[in-house]
């Protein structure tokens, strides 16, 4: 039996070690980033972010709650405009109730209140409700797009995408 010694000089040893550490570190970093990516599912089963909300003539004047449970949207028709309000309270993100007798949105979590036009007037809410983008499709239906948000305090409610004339 012959004993063959692998001879490494100092320089070779360090380049060997360096390659080893780089490989090890990148393997760990790769696994960590895979684990991170794993926490974001490719598909989720939440409602679509945009939807067709019927025709403008489907809505009476006032607050309409038909899309509240399915899409989290109030349709409000007032003063010749139809707008789509987010039903998320601007205080901490709960869902207010529409109180028809008192003509206001009232949040059960901390008591924020909003007028029918979305402006806050009581409780801790720091700003009015948010509007979603709303538009008419070529065949006359209403399209609500929740990925675009229009805020009163930024002066965005004058934007023609934040309401439709009715």
């Amino acid at each position, binding site marked *: 039996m012959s004993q063959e010694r692998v001879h490494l000089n100092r320089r070779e040893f360090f380049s060997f070690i360096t390659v080893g550490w780089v490989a090890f570190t990148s393997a760990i970093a790769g696994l960590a980033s895979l684990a991170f990516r794993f*926490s*974001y*599912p490719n598909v*989720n089963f*939440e409602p679509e972010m945009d939807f067709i909300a019927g025709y403008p003539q489907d809505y009476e004047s006032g607050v309409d709650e038909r899309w509240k449970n399915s899409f989290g949207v109030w349709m409000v028709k007032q003063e010749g405009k139809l707008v789509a309000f987010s039903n998320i309270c601007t205080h*901490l*993100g*709960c869902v207010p109730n529409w109180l028809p007798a008192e003509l206001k949105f009232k949040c059960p*979590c901390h008591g924020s209140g909003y007028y029918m036009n979305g402006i806050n007037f009581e409780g801790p809410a720091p700003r009015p409700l948010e509007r979603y983008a709303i538009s008419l499709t070529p065949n006359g239906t209403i399209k609500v797009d929740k*990925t675009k948000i229009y805020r009163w305090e930024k002066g965005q409610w004058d934007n023609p995408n934040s309401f439709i004339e009715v």
Partner: protein
Amino acid sequence: MSKRGVADYIRETQVWKSIFRHGPPTNARNRAAVVAGNVFLHLHPIKLKKSGVQLGYTWCMGGLTFFIFLALTVTGLLLMFYYRPTAEYAYNDIIALKEHVPLGIMREIHRWGAHAMVITVWLHMFRVFMTGSYKPPREFNWGVGVILLVLTLLLSFTGYLLPWDQLAIWAITVGANMAKATPFLGHGGPGAAFAQIGDFVMVSDKNDVRFQLLAGRFVGEPALLRFYILHCVFIPLVVGTLIAVHFWRVRKDGGISAPL
């Protein structure tokens, strides 16, 4: 031959000797071996200063916290036998734990224990601060303790959702919106507006930290499952590991600090 008691007889059996690798703790060497030779006790200092067991100085708050953590682990494991983390069953299983299961108080023990643990952790931190026990060489262990405090609060937070009632869902909605406000990582936080290239929004409600926490845009069934795993497996594993480090460092840093 002198009089031999039953205890001496038992100590000489092979079973006893195979379990305990040292003689009776009648001398200093054996008493040290009791601690050093035991996998659980060896995290503990072999010798204590008299002041280390002085209630007026330590309040035993760290020990109480650990005791409550153990109680929560045991009651939590028992609760897991009956609780299913799905939207269909979660709420009813919590009711069942009170009504359909012997010892309906089990869930209350777990809940009150959780409250108590948060209180004892704070008091422990207060004591350590007031006695200056965070100073070198114990500064590393203070850091470990701060992480353990945060993890304790996260255990409370994740456990809060599991009853799946109105309070739970809206409390977690509000809590998760804090993640939304994280700088650069949450879509409502400072810096998110800068991470935008033309119409392409880099940090949005579908890829920020809140989405990662809830596995969705709002608190739904995926969030329930995620919080359940975090509460029952992930965070307790990290906490258990850090508790071991924490105790071991108490020993390595010179034992419990003493009055000057």
